[in-house]
């Protein structure tokens, strides 16, 4: 009897510890916000928060898609190039179709549909090569990263294509709902994307299958789960997210350029990992990624307000990322 009671107590302690470990990002984030509220002038203002949301939603939407990809046990390194390509295609389409008598709005829509089609095609290709040819997604998408980057540079002729978009397209990235001090449209897109991905991962068979495939592809296959379809789905979604981000990015700057999105894949992966998603697949939450995005946004914003130079900011971000991975590795060990 005594043993059982002692066992239960240990068990409860373990559960409290696990709960804290599971929510350590929330704890850190709240501490950070409290600290910055008192330490950094101008942090806790409406304007500043809207600014944080606006500037982080560009990468944030991709991070949501990347969460699905990493949970499925895959990776997509090509998303930065997709961001550039999407903007460039829409800009070219607006510039070159309007002289032919096509309405500027229609030209923009044609460009958007075209870039979405390219993204879906690449996502599908990535997934199919992983599943059918057994190629690692790391390598395939690395190849796509270079290929799409080159394609974007060729399409844009090597220069930014500025001031071609219709105004509503610029609003996607730069506009606000409710006037000058309103909520950025980019932030609204992030929230909508968050809700959609959250629903997919938590409330659909595809979401469950994604966890299963990342957790153990062989068990998933032998349970009659369509592994190939699941992987393709995740890799298509992240590409679509990258295109949406590309629209926002080019709209915000009112130009399309092949240099946009360069190196974003690492920022995006960092946000996902900081959000507690396991790089080995099978474990992770969409909520965690949202926290990771906000966390990285807040810390960058705070450091800028505190006049940290950009290089110090890199070091701080590096330390945070290493700590986050340490925490999730420890968590996996405790739970095992």
């Amino acid at each position, binding site marked *: 009897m005594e043993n059982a009671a002692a066992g239960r107590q240990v068990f409860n302690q373990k559960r409290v510890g696990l709960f804290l470990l599971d929510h350590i990002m929330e704890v850190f984030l709240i501490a950070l916000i409290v600290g910055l509220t008192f330490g950094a002038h101008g942090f806790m203002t409406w304007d500043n928060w809207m600014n944080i949301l606006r500037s982080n939603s560009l990468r944030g939407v991709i991070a949501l898609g990347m969460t699905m990809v990493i949970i499925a046990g895959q990776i997509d390194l090509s998303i930065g190039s997709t961001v550039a390509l999407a903007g460039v295609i829409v800009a070219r389409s607006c510039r070159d179709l309007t002289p032919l008598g096509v309405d500027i709005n229609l030209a923009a829509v044609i460009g958007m549909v075209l870039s979405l089609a390219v993204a879906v095609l690449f996502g599908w290709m990535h997934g199919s090569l992983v599943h059918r040819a057994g190629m690692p997604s790391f390598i395939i998408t690395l190849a796509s990263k270079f290929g799409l980057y080159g394609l974007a540079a060729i399409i844009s002729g090597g220069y930014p294509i500025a001031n071609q978009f219709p105004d509503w397209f610029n609003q996607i990235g730069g506009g606000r709902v409710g006037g000058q001090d309103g909520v950025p449209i980019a932030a609204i897109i992030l929230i909508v994307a968050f809700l959609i991905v959250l629903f997919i991962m938590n*409330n659909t*068979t595809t979401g469950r299958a994604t966890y299963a495939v990342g957790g153990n592809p062989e068990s998933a296959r032998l349970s009659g789960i369509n592994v190939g379809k699941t992987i393709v789905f995740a890799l298509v979604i992240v590409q679509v997210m990258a295109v949406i981000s590309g629209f926002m990015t080019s709209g915000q700057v009112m130009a399309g350029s092949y240099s946009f999105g360069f190196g974003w894949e690492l920022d995006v992966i960092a946000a996902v990992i900081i959000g507690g998603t396991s790089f080995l697949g*099978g474990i992770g939450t969409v909520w965690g990624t949202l926290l990771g995005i906000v966390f990285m946004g807040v810390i960058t914003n705070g450091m800028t307000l505190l006049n940290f130079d950009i290089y110090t900011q890199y070091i701080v971000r590096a330390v945070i990322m290493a700590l986050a991975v340490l925490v999730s590795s420890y968590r996996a060990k405790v739970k095992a």
Partner: protein
Amino acid sequence: MSDLMIRTEHITKDYPGTRALEDISLSFGSGQVHALVGKNGSGKSTLVKIFAGAIKPTSGNFYLNDEKLHFNATSDAYDKGIVTVYQEMSLVPGLSVAENIFLGRLPQKYSSIDWRKTYKMAGVLLKKMKLDVDPREKVSRLSMWQSQVVEITKALSFNPKVILLDEPTSSLAQNEVQSLFEAVRALRDQGVVVIYITHKLQELPQIADTVTVLRDGRLIGSVEMDEVEHKDIIHMMFGEVKVQSRPKDIQIQDDIVMEVKGLSREGWFKDVSFSLRRGEVLGIAGMLGSGRTELLHGIFGADRVDRGEVIIEGKTYKRANPIKMKNAGIGLTPENRKKEGLILIHSIMDNLCYASMNITDNGWVENKGRRAEFASRQVRELEIKVPDIKAACSSLSGGNQQKVVVGNWLNTSPKIMLYDEPSRGIDVNAKQQIFEIMWTQARKGVSTVFVSTELEELLEVCHRILIMRHGKIVAEVNPDAVSINELYETCMRGD
């Protein structure tokens, strides 16, 4: 070389709830190959682990010549010259034979590796083992038996006094076994004590000088090989088995649920045909490497088949896949539940519902309530002992994990269940419960195919047993009309 002798005195090993070894006193001398045999759970691997320093006996001692041995770690066993070669290969495929043999202790000269010496030393050892392989060759280019001999050569490089070979032929093809035996004889002639653990009785006359039989943790006997016959050894291994009988009320119905016709897969199984009736429990007896696992995978569509078809309730399936077969009403519990049956990092509840997602959910959208209902129904009906249904599956014992794999499939309301070695690595109680599940399902009209190496189990559980050898169904037996020894004979007969 002087005579060596490893000897045990009254060794007993207790685990919580079970006694793995009881009062074992035996001795093995040099210049002979000593076969150590026994069925699964007989205690032979426990004894090996004691010699290897992996575990300590609860009581009793063991000696090398007259020196009493105390091992706290496996390295202690190495220091005393007792080396174990396990059945899983531990070689690094990308490195050369010589590097593998001296891995971690490559000879040095001027603080860099002395390659000339490495290859020379390896060459000498390989010659002793009569293995004609270039020490510079990469291990990945060797055949299975050659790698196995390199593994033994590596053991020999430690200048051992005792070598334990744990099922060295388990992954070898028939023709390779002879080549390995050459090497084992070469080893014996070096004056090393060779202990050869195996379950393949047909090998014994060729390689063993003495045979030691363990059963249920007890030493049954140690005999000279040329003094015994095959059937004596089988009798020693199994004793007088009292086979429990299955419940009498399970009736096979007349209609055929599944028909397998001429199913073949190059190199694994050939022209397999049988039919399965509703409510029938059909056993397939076959040793490791007989093609039984591949056959089940073939029926389930998990691996390709080259020829043949599976007919389920009149519908023919030729190029199947697990999704199709699941919808046709088949479920499979794989042999390796951790790697193929479960997602260990996920919860018990999730693992109970992966196969049945298309049933519990409303189209694409999950129905969490129904999923929880399905999961808890299996927990209740299969009596799965769970601390918390949301806990990770890795926290369960082997028996309960196996029940989760079974429950995952029962949630799909299958017509046919394929069980691949369901009792491996689980305790007696859990085994019995798994059999109960099979019978309960049979009463509901579910047909079962049950693959096992444990022949007593098949006799106990099945209505009919097919015997599979080298990829072919070679016999069909009625469990009520055959003894365990006869069944074992038929399974093991080498032809």
